[in-house]
């Protein structure tokens, strides 16, 4: 269970994939019910008709829909402007595939969406046609523990008749003011893909570098002056299963980085080091400790002569006294607030908490570094090329050379920085010295003054993440087993339980989780007190 531990804006996908949309459907259906239908010519475009009767890619009887055609045309106009055209056409195979008829296209202050248009080619009868005037614009709903406010919105249209046998499709254009000169092409998804095209148009003299993830590399063909095209076909669908790695760690993707004439710019990520430099610039001066912060550190650590105890006192303050509140507007999705502001308001998101903690640690002479990471282990691996695949920020704390303590488990000796302790100040329950399971063996970008490097976080011993039950029972002649059980939960197991208890106010209900362990003996009646 992860709670209040991931934040920051993820890279916006081109269009939200189906399963994520279910929770919005009621609200959207309500809004769309009010939207009158605008005049339309009731005719799907030629690119859709051209594929409507194409042979389907391999699929099984559980497949809800197949992606017949996908086209992403990226036109890099300058370092400040990228235009993207997206076209997709699905054939609906099962009633559960009707969700594909609701199209969400996210956007934010750096990414505008225009000309959203949708069509349906029914198996019988005339085509249907909708555009964004028939649709709605929504903000993501407030979920407890998530952002208080951000500027991510979505345009939504509802394509008529997304019934089995029909083909639905949509297209839209995006004008992007890119924070980084990089694009992600996610061509594999839950639906099997018949054919997906990606084209890149660069200004004269610009160059690109492509990297492939979870799929064999395809070579581009040059289709014009400084224009390249990639095509993949018959791509298998990725169906969700329990306890599987995150989809972003399994699905085929291509990352394209591009460079202006004359070399790189600050927003080009050819290497993790370059990306680290970008984040270093973005966070410049944010971790400066104000006098008030220093005074608070002095007060917190006054009774703690040992450096480790001082660090623990600071960690506890950040975990308990700085409330998780995310306000992420524009660049605020990536750039933390000033430590001073976070301290004054006593709230902030993950990067804000890391920023204030870093400032407070510096006040006791301890250096620390941001680690930008994805809270779903498996999204980024040792082979992942540099790109914005992260949604969370934690700290790497440089431990004083002589400091050794068995409670400090989440440590790693790094060649350049020495003995480092990883710590997530957003996680309010995991004790200082440890990290949650979602971070263990995970890969994050450690942002150091000279740039950054992708580091693997340590895996804590299994014994630190378990349940120990000690039982003393007596069996009587009637078969009745009676006695006492003591249960000790460690690591994530303890964290999950504490997280559950936090919101339970009724003492009788606190007993309930204990019952669950006894019901693991399904054939036996049990009573717990």
């Amino acid at each position, binding site marked *: 269970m992860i709670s209040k531990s991931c934040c920051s804006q993820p890279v916006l996908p081109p269009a939200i994939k189906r399963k994520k949309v279910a929770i919005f459907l009621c609200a959207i259906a309500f809004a769309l019910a009010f939207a009158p239908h605008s005049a339309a010519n009731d005719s799907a475009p030629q690119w859709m008709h051209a594929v409507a009767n194409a042979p389907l890619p391999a699929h099984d009887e559980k497949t809800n829909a197949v992606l017949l055609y996908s086209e992403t045309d990226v036109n890099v106009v300058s370092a400040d402007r990228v235009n993207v055209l997206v076209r997709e056409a699905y054939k609906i195979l099962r009633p559960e595939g009707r969700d594909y008829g609701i199209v969400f296209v996210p956007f934010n202050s750096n990414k505008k969406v225009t000309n959203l248009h949708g069509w349906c080619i029914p198996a019988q009868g005339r085509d*249907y046609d909708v555009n964004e005037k028939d649709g709605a614009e929504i*903000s993501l709903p407030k979920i407890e523990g998530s952002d208080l*406010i951000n500027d991510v919105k979505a345009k939504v249209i509802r394509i*008529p008749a997304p019934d089995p046998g029909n083909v639905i499709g949509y297209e839209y254009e995006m004008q992007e003011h890119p924070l980084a000169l990089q694009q992600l092409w996610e061509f594999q998804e839950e639906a099997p893909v018949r054919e997906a095209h990606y084209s890149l148009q660069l200004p004269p003299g610009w160059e690109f570098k492509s990297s492939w993830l979870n799929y064999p590399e395809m070579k581009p063909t040059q289709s014009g002056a400084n224009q390249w095209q990639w095509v993949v076909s018959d791509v298998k669908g990725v169906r969700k299963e329990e306890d599987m790695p995150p989809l972003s760690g399994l699905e085929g993707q291509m990352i394209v980085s591009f460079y202006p004439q004359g070399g790189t710019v600050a927003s080009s990520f050819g290497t993790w080091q370059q990306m680290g430099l970008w984040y270093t610039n973005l966070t410049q001066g944010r971790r400066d400790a104000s006098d008030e912060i220093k005074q608070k550190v002095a007060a917190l650590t006054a009774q703690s002569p040992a450096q480790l105890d001082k660090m623990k006192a600071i960690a506890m303050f950040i975990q308990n006294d700085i409330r998780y509140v995310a306000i992420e507007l524009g660049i605020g999705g990536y750039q933390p607030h000033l430590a001073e502001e976070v301290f004054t308001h006593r709230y902030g998101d993950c990067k804000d908490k890391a920023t204030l903690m870093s400032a407070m640690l510096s006040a006791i002479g301890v250096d620390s570094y941001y680690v930008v990471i994805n809270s779903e282990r498996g999204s980024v691996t040792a082979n992942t090329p540099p790109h914005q695949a992260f949604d969370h920020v934690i700290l790497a704390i440089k431990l004083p050379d002589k400091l050794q303590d068995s409670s400090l488990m989440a440590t790693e000796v790094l060649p350049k920085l020495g003995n480092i302790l990883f710590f997530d100040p957003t996680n309010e329950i995991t004790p200082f010295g440890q990290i949650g399971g979602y971070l263990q063996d995970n890969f994050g970008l450690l942002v150091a003054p000279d740039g950054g490097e992708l580091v693997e976080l340590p895996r804590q011993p299994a014994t630190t993440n378990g349940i120990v039950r000690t039982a003393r029972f007596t069996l009587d002649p009637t078969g009745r087993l009676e006695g006492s059980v003591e249960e000790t939960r460690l690591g994530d197991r303890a964290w999950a339980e504490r997280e559950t208890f936090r919101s*339970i*106010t*009724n003492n009788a209900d606190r007993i309930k989780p204990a019952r669950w362990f006894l019901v693991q003996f399904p054939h036996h*009646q049990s009573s717990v007190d």
Partner: protein
Amino acid sequence: MTSEPLAPGAAAIVLYRQVDRDDRGQTAHENDFMRIKILTEEGRKYADVEIPFNKSGGNNVGNIHGRTIRPDGTAVEYQGKVFEKAIVKAKGVKYMAKTFTLPDVEIGSIIEYSYTLDLSENILYDSQWILSDELFTKSASFSLKPYTNDMVPFYCRWSWHDLPAGSEPPKEGPDHVVRLEVHNVPAFQSEDYMPPENELKARVDFTYSQEQLEKDPSQFWKNRGKKLNGAVESFVNKRNAMQAAVEQIVSPSDSPEAKLQKIYARVQQLRNTSYEVEKTEQQQKRDKEEKEASNVEDVWKRGYGDERDLTWLFLGLVRAAGIEADPVIVSDRSNFFFNPAIMDAYKLDADVVLVKVNGKEIYFGPGAAFTPFGMLEWPETGVQGLRLDKNGGTWVHTTLPESNESVVERKAVLTLSDTGTLEGKLTITYTGLEGMQRRMEERNEDDAARKKFLEEDAKEDIPVGSEVDLTNKPDWSSSSSPLIAEYTLKIPGWVSGAGRHAMVPVGLFSAPEKHVFEHAQRVHPIYFEYPFEKWDDVAITLPAGWQVSSLPPAKSKDEKLIDYELKTENDKNTIHLTRKLKVDLLMLESKYYPALRSFYEVVRSGDDQQILLQPAGATASN
């Protein structure tokens, strides 16, 4: 203060809440104030405030102020930014929210915020005071200055529900302001098997009307009944067309009951647009369904209609067949419980038909898909309704089906292997509302989804991991026949060994009862949608040479309205288990919860009993 004795364990409590609505003048507005005490770390989340409003309706939220009072008494005024976000923006629709978070909030802090909700000009809104909040409320004060107009008379009526103990009902003062003060309003708590939330929350509802408000409920409903009767009769009164239609359905020699059955079956077979996948406006236009039917003749000619169209078509056809039938407007109990004294016309919101055949009155809900003959869908059962006539009608109560009309019957013929695996055939028959509910849920799905649905449904009844494979093609379209699902079933490790014995648990389908009503405390009444029964009949053939060492005693607990019976028998090498669970309850006051809980404990103890077997080759010993 670190806790509130009346709200033990609460994360936060509302110390004071004030809502003052002023509907007078051209622009109405409402001033809201909240003072919240933070008692735990979890409670700090109440410092994040989101105020939704309908901007497209001309409403706005302004004049926002807030502050945090620290535990030491010092205060921090809120000076941050108030964010406005569009929750949904579409043509003609703009739902927005003002969002802010109060600073420096810690355990022991008091947070305060206030705002003004400006309502649009020249529009008069009904209002509602919901007193039950997510948090316990120590004190709250509400007021409403109702709209008045010197030129056109406006009338305002209010009703209240479930006010906290000791509260005076809302009263209009000499200044014509309606006021209410309440204290110690419990936090609203959700529980399993509870009545609709609206029935449990304390609230006051205000209604404006330009017509003189009727003070006498019987006169109010008489007037309403006359209006409704006029509308229904003008929709149904197409005698010639109905007579021609009914001739196509029944034969003159049919008995009245047979005629009724044929008409019901015919109406159920018609396309019911209320249960189809929702269409976009463009599809509706294309399918030329935008125009509402103006009478039953239209519905019959088209061959389709919505729930209401089909109900009245049935009424027209039954009458044309010479059978006495009346329209009845009833109250759907899935959201509210109806109280005629409140005089809310919109609470009578569902249509059924009362037919008199062979001297017996039977309710029909032909517009509800998959509803068996002579039954209603559950929200319309056991509710008050107005049987319409030209004089306004009379009050009636719809019937509540017997528990044995909605049954899940599971029959299993299984073989036990030497390794403890149970394997064989399972047939589950869903009758009455049990079948209807499942057909309704899966009505727009394909065979693969329905197969998965039924298999998961069956697996959920079995308390351990099992393999279930549907082998037949159930009849998903009928409303007259039970829904029958046949499976092959395999439960590895159902029988476990203990020394020289093997033990067979008797509760093969006991999973749903394992965790119901476990909580020691109960706040709300216990509410079941409809009475039901579960019947299990399981035959297990033992491996060759195996013998039964002991059978558990029969267990039964008959509380009349709820009943449990479990029996195990042994015949040669076959064990025969029968289990019956009857729940003939609709609502039970919370004071009877301990008795209900103890009944389910008996059920669990019966289901957890074991049959002792002696495998082949093992000899009995002490």
